[in-house]
């Protein structure tokens, strides 16, 4: 009986721990006494159990109230104190705000681009499907129509395969003619994408034979004033009226953001038959419950089966990639690097404030000691100090939120148009909650430590004024020193990575693209099917006439046209058969060009001859190849004069005679190996609908652009206005994302460095206060001011050196990770280390100098009297 009572009392005592210590100390004993009285008043064990449950229930109800009351009390106290040290508070809040704001902005971008679900139904079941050729080292190529049908037939785990190809159309009627980006898609495309029309309906498989289309929300607003009457309207695309059956939601951006219309794919007889072309993009929807890995295993088997039955599929595999992974893959490395850097900045900012709090803890030791002497337990004081820190960090969090929001807006405004996804990034509720939670969490973590240091036992010593610069002062100073070492290490790390990145951008821009872009204007022209398909050769004549006119413009040095400008995505590629070689060879790209094209770009002919006006339809079908193709496929034999066939031996394409070998260009990007390429004369490929004209000029670009536009208008007034861009600008666009990334990282490392300098300054300034008596004595005994300055600067230097060594080690490790993420970033080099070291050293000297100057201004008499 007594033992049972004892057990229940123990239970109640344990429950009392839920109260704040202060309340427990005051009323805990009383509560226990009353509880035991109550128990004793009960005779049955049921009654005793009821008493026990009611008592514990009471504790559960009232303990939170007591905590809230104490918190409110601490808050009031904290507010008074923070107000008293207004400057320290402002600097701290600004520092925290900077750290939190940076993190908030970068995390928002990362979250919305990498983590947020795509706006498609069951988007996790959508995959992109690519043809791969491990032997040739490419893993993301398009497919052909027959292969798509085979996939559909042979896969069980994939619910549906859809395909698309991008096209440019001329949109006429209903206002000015406009050049429109469109996608031709299979009828099940929107089923696979899990997207309903916002207005009207989607394309359906039954639509395939009819000219129907759905349009983007943007085009609907722009061209049809957002009126629902657009349904059933006909839009004229390349002269063919298409019935609009639906408008897509505003957030649908696939295959890319520029696509404004989706029409039914109607493959021609050749396209239906040919396996070896690579022109159809493919997306698929997995069956419910199927993982990408399972589907991949099945598709591997399908690919092996196809490889046995079709020569064109011999080396080919299939790669499935989750749609989100596929879309975010190009951004992920940059975002991960930036995220890591922003965490670095946050850590530096928070530790700066922690160092400041440790310093203030020193100053407040007397106050803390008095409170402790008046009976406040250590936890009560720690709690008070942590509350103070949390208030500081919460204010910093709010400032950070504001800065993060401004930062995001700035990021969106300054982002190159190429990074259009950034426009979708917003500061959503989840991010606001995360940011505030982050601020509170950092407040607790970075507040706890200084509070713990401030309340270490030693009350008597503090009360008797034992603040003579030794002992505990030295300890907290050592802690602050350790913080500076950590900060310098992080700064060195972030700085090293950004120097690496900047280095890679500089290197990329220096690489020779294989042609001379300076002074070249480019114009992309697409001739609409309706007016130019017939008679055959009409397009060729148009381009030739236009080029003649352009060459006549004063200031034009030369002009030519090509199906692409030798930069940007892989052009159409094919397997090939070489006369006398008994197997089909994988992949060569084909560009259709006019005779002056390669000359205008200054791509030299290495061997044989260039294309001329004499290479016409009806004559000998000819082609040029590049050095890589010659080396890879002709393997040392002289290609000039030999013949090859695009599409392999089974195709009925004409045999092309190689008349020359030209130098390689680096169209895939300066950091990639050149492709094997071939060039055919436009006159022998009369169906080519669009060309990019390159105009080498000697004069003013802006004036030339006008001349180019009027030359086009003279020939065909109804062609849509076109963008005239310099080739330099197009090249620039390719590295813009990387430059932006390098720029952002540099901004982060500058911030990190500035914050670290402030931190170091704080530590040294405090060191000077702690040792003012010593300095005064030294000066009085005849030390030169220079020696004192050196002493202080040396302290700063010592901390920095340790931090820099640690940071360099970390950077060396991180460089591998960064290289893994961004393969074109070079390894760290002594130059990198040297640049970083000198930047850090400069910041250190700057931060040490001011406190050092202050040290020698110490007046010995005043300093000694103060003790």
């Amino acid at each position, binding site marked *: 009986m007594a033992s049972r009572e004892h057990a229940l009392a123990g239970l109640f005592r344990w429950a009392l721990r839920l109260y704040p210590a202060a*309340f427990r100390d*005051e*009323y805990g*004993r*009383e*509560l226990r*006494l*009353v*509880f035991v*009285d*109550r128990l004793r008043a009960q005779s049955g064990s049921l009654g005793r159990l009821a008493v026990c449950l*009611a*008592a514990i*229930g*009471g*504790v559960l*109800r*009232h*303990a939170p*109230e*007591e905590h809230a009351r104490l918190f409110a009390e601490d808050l009031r106290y904290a507010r008074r104190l923070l107000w008293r040290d207004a400057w320290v508070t402002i600097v701290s809040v600004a520092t925290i705000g900077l750290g939190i704001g940076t993190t908030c902005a970068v995390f928002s971008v990362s979250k919305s681009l990498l983590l947020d679900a795509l706006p498609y139904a069951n988007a996790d079941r959508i995959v992109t499907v690519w043809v791969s050729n491990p032997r040739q080292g490419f893993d993301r190529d398009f497919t052909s129509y027959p292969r798509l049908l085979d996939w559909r037939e042979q896969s069980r785990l994939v619910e549906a395969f859809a395909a698309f190809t991008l096209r440019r159309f001329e949109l006429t009627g209903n206002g000015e003619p406009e050049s429109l980006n469109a996608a031709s898609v299979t009828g099940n495309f929107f089923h696979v994408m899990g997207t309903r029309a916002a207005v009207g309906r989607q394309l359906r498989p039954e639509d395939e034979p009819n000219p129907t289309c759905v349009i983007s929300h943007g085009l609907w607003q722009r061209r049809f004033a957002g009126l629902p009457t657009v349904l059933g309207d006909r839009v004229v695309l390349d002269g063919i009226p298409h019935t609009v059956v639906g408008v897509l939601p505003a957030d649908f951006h696939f295959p890319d953001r520029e696509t404004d219309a989706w029409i039914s794919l109607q493959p021609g007889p050749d396209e239906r038959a040919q396996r070896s072309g690579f022109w159809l993009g493919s997306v698929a929807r997995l069956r419910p419950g199927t993982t990408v890995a399972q589907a991949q295993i099945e598709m591997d088997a399908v690919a092996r089966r196809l490889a046995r039955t079709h020569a064109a599929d011999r080396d080919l595999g299939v790669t499935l990639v989750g749609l989100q992974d596929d879309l975010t893959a190009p951004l992920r490395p940059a975002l991960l690097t930036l995220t890591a850097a922003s965490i670095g900045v946050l850590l530096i900012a928070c530790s700066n404030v922690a160092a400041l709090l440790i310093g203030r803890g020193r100053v407040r030791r007397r106050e803390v000691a008095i409170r402790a002497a008046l009976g406040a337990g250590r936890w009560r004081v720690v709690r008070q100090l942590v509350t103070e820190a949390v208030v500081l960090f919460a204010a910093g969090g709010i400032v950070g939120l504001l800065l993060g929001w401004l930062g995001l807006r700035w990021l969106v405004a300054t982002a190159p148009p190429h990074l259009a996804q950034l426009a979708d990034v917003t500061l959503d509720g989840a991010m606001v909650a995360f940011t505030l939670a982050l601020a509170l969490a950092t407040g607790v973590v970075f507040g706890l430590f200084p509070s713990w240091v401030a309340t270490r036992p030693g009350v008597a010593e503090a009360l008797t004024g034992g603040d003579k610069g030794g002992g505990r002062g030295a300890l907290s100073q050592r802690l602050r020193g350790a913080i500076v070492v950590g900060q310098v290490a992080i700064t060195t790390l972030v700085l090293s990575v950004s120097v690496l990145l900047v280095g890679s951008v500089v290197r990329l821009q220096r690489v020779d693209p294989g042609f001379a872009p300076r002074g070249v204007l480019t114009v992309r022209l697409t001739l609409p099917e309706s007016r130019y398909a017939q008679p055959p050769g009409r397009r060729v004549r148009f381009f030739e006439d236009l080029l003649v006119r352009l060459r006549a413009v004063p200031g034009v040095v030369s002009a030519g046209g090509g199906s692409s400008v030798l930069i940007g995505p892989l052009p159409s590629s094919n397997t090939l058969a070489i006369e006398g070689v008994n197997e089909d060879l994988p992949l060569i790209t084909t560009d259709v060009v006019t005779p002056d094209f390669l000359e205008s770009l200054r791509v030299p002919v290495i061997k044989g001859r260039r294309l001329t006006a004499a290479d016409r339809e009806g004559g000998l079908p000819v082609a040029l190849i590049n050095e890589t193709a010659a080396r890879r496929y002709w393997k040392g034999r002289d290609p000039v004069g030999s013949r090859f066939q695009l599409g392999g031996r089974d195709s009925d394409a004409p045999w092309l005679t190689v008349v020359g070998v030209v130098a390689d260009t680096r169209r895939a990007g300066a950091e990639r190996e050149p492709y094997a390429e071939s060039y055919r004369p436009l006159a022998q490929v009369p169906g080519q609908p669009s060309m990019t004209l390159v105009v080498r000029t000697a004069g003013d670009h802006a004036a030339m652009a006008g001349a180019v536009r009027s030359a086009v208008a003279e020939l065909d007034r109804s062609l849509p206005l076109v963008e005239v861009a310099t080739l330099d600008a197009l090249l620039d666009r390719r590295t813009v994302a990387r430059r932006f990334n390098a720029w952002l990282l540099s901004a982060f490392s500058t911030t990190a460095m500035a914050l670290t300098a402030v931190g170091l300054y704080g530590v040294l300034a405090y060191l000077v206060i702690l040792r003012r008596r010593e300095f005064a004595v030294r000066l009085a005994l005849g030390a030169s001011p220079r020696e004192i300055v050196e002493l202080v600067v040396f302290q700063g230097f010592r901390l920095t050196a340790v931090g820099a060594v640690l940071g360099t080690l970390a950077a060396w490790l991180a460089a591998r990770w960064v290289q893994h993420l961004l393969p074109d970033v070079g390894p760290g080099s002594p130059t990198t280390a040297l640049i970083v070291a000198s930047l850090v050293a400069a910041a250190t000297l700057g931060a040490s100098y001011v406190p050092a100057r202050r040290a020698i201004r110490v007046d010995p008499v005043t300093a000694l009297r103060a003790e």
Partner: protein
Amino acid sequence: MAPRQTAGPTPDDLLPLSRDALDVLVSLADGDRHGYAILQDIAERSGGRVRLSPSTLYAVVRRLLESGLIIESAERPDPEHDDERRRYYTLTAAGRQVARAEARRLEQLIADARACGLLPRRG
């Protein structure tokens, strides 16, 4: 027995009292009591209907102490009833005033209820 030096709230500022607070004040009106005695007194007067948990009691006690309506008693009761370990509480003058004001407020409420026929009028 002066109340704590606060900004000088008048008794009316503290009204209405919570039921628990009024119970405790009433229980202390006829003499000092310790915690358990207060609980017993409240239970007896209510015929066993009101049973405060110890936590509720001390939450109320803490609030009443803070607002100066009760204090810890300095005098100990008769030696034979005294329990050394326990704290006894005393109603302050302010506490008495507040309790009285609250009782009057309730009285008025009941009178109003009678006047409008909610309760039977007294003979």
